[in-house]
């Protein structure tokens, strides 16, 4: 009776009401595997474009009131006997140039660079230096934070839901985190300290999304009042749960994507990599919650139940 009432929730006017997410699970799995493989290859071939936060050296942001030319910036630094690398012009008015110098400048050199650049371009530049040790520590710290957060999340989901859901939720979030890394590697976007915050935000967000869907799965299993065992039975529950939460998932990602897109367009240059990472991660997060986490959980759950059943049969025979 409850289940019948539940069925009446179906809003037949939605285009995805007949979409069978479970039917295409292998397609999703293949897509994600290919993406992960692509990421691994990309990491070996293109590596990561590590900003000075993770390597070492000096970074100077030159700003001017007019559009800035790379050659002019280059000349200015060569006049001071530095060899600037990878000059990049950015800003809505093309008035910011970012330059890297491979050596760590000391404070006297920094003071000299600042006053020279200010004389020449009119605005005091930003100067950052990092020693190799700090860069390594930062990267280690970030990875450690990711692992620690994952463990806590698995434990929490384990307590509130079940272990397999915790596991798949974390697999999905690692999938998202790795996808951000892949995009940054493929397009050679500079990875800075805020990148770690962005990845961790996505971890929090992606898990949020997955949990909402799992929450509905949990509820629908309770309502069905059946002992589910076959993949077909689980598929029905998973499909129903995804459909029921899809409007929410889409609306939520839209409300979070909106500010991110606006930050990307109008926001400050200094958080650009941060917003790019968020943008990529948010989209990947919705995809993985719906198309990876739930179907993967159903597959693993059925496999686990089958194994237990076999074990029991063997025991009763003996």
């Amino acid at each position, binding site marked *: 009776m409850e289940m019948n009432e539940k069925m009446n929730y179906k809003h037949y006017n939605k285009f995805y009401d007949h979409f069978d997410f479970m039917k295409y699970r292998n397609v999703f799995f293949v897509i994600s595997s290919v993406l992960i493989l692509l990421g691994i290859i990309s990491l070996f071939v293109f590596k990561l474009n590590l900003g000075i936060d993770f390597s070492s050296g000096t970074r100077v942001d030159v700003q001017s009131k007019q559009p800035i030319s790379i050659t002019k910036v280059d000349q200015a630094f060569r006049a001071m006997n530095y060899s600037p690398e990878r000059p990049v012009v950015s800003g809505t008015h093309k008035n910011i140039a970012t330059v890297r110098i491979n050596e760590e400048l000391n404070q006297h050199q920094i003071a000299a660079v600042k006053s020279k650049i200010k004389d020449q371009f009119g605005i005091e530049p930003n100067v950052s230096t990092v020693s190799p040790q700090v860069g390594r520590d930062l990267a280690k710290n970030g990875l450690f934070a990711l692992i620690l957060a994952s463990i806590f999340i698995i434990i929490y989901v384990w307590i509130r839901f079940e272990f397999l859901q915790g596991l798949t939720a974390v697999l999905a979030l690692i999938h998202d985190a790795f996808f951000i890394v892949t995009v940054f590697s493929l397009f050679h976007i500079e990875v800075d300290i805020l990148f770690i915050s962005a990845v961790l935000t996505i971890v*929090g967000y992606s898990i949020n999304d997955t949990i909402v869907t799992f929450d509905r799965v949990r509820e629908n299993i309770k309502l069905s009042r059946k002992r589910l065992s076959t993949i077909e039975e689980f598929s029905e529950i998973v499909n129903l749960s995804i459909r029921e939460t899809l409007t929410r998932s889409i609306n939520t990602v839209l409300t979070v994507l909106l500010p991110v897109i*606006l930050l990307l367009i109008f*926001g400050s240059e200094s958080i650009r990599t941060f917003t790019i990472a968020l943008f990529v991660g948010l989209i990947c997060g919705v995809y993985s919650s719906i198309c990876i986490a739930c179907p993967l959980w159903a597959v693993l759950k059925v496999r686990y139940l089958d194994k237990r059943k076999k074990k029991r049969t063997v025991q009763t025979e003996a």
Partner: protein
Amino acid sequence: MVKKGPIFSFFALLIVLGIIIGFAVNPIIHNVKLGLDLKGGFEVLYQVKPLKAGQKIDSDTMSNAVAAINKRINVLGVSEPNISIENGHRIRVQLPGVKNEKRARQLLSTTAKLEFRDYKDRLMLDGSDLKPGKAKVAFDQMNKPMVTLQLKDPAKFASVTKKIASYYPNNQLVIWMDYKKGDSYQKEVGKKNHKYISNPGVEQQLNTSDVQISGNFTMQEATTLKDLLNSGSLPVRMNEIYSTSVGAQFGQDSMKETIYAGALAVAAIMLFMLFFYRLGGLIADLTLVLYMAIVMGVFVGLQAVLTLPGIAAMILGIGMAVDANIITLERIKDELRSGKSVLSAFKAGNHRALPTVVDANLTTIIAAAVLFVLGVSAVKGFAVMLLISNVVTFLTSIYGARLLLGLLVHSRALNNHPWLLGVKRRDIRGNE
């Protein structure tokens, strides 16, 4: 029949909240501490190393070093310095809005390590032999400024001067400030702008604890030296391992751009909610205003420093706060579609949405808490904002929205008007 009581309460509540927020806005805005990425200024991370072989760096040494830096910054007169110990052996100094950055940086990095060395650069005495806080500016017979110091142990000074006197004709006691490895008296002695402060000759053993340094100072140089020595010759060696400085213009531009983007984002989200959830969206928008005021209030109350990532976290937090509204409103819509009355749909929807929102927010809080504990500097600012956002979401988007919408529902004004919550009549069970 529409009951007037709840509607009256609804508007009364709105007016009271509006007044409170109206009065709170100004003090909040004026008390926000801006980080150096928004205000300009600089930040240096020092690796702390022992001054002498065998010196242990424990938490006492570190807090002494921080105290010394603090005193020095007070001499500088920077308004909102932020000094913190990291990883046990590092000190991060942030000076937002510092006006004369070059001078500040020079003063800060001058570890004021006063050393007395012999002509072969062997260390004889150093800052740890001085009585703290006893440096003074005085004048010699020629009426030129000099700095006087007091030593802790006259016997040690006696033995040092005896040794130096015996080196005749190389009987100079060379006084160095921030001697670095590779500096050499022999190389510097001929130069006009030598690195050491002075090199008085010592004729005989001196049985005193008073020392005078006269090094052709101007009055200002003598005062600076005195201030540095009194504010504490640092008990440790500090090497710069990370530094970042942001031009004031850069900071202002970043802040303007990000706040502009944020305002647009808030407007866009509000319109989106109104469009999709009608009256429910309006309630969500109202709680969103309350949410922003509380988040900023708590943030300012905690004396946290607002950084660019912090603003980004707040904008993201708005998206997540709205998510709680969306989950609840979607549930209420579901219940309405199943044919329930507005009142029971409202009750059932809230009841069913609560665990979802709690689970979803708690997992994000876990991630934010890990960031807060492990993160440094800018990342920490981000984590604080994310944590506050998530906690406040419980208050406004769950309880605030429930209270406000509840008053309207209980007034029965919404009965038979499910479209006010974004549900079409033909979608309701039994109305096909």
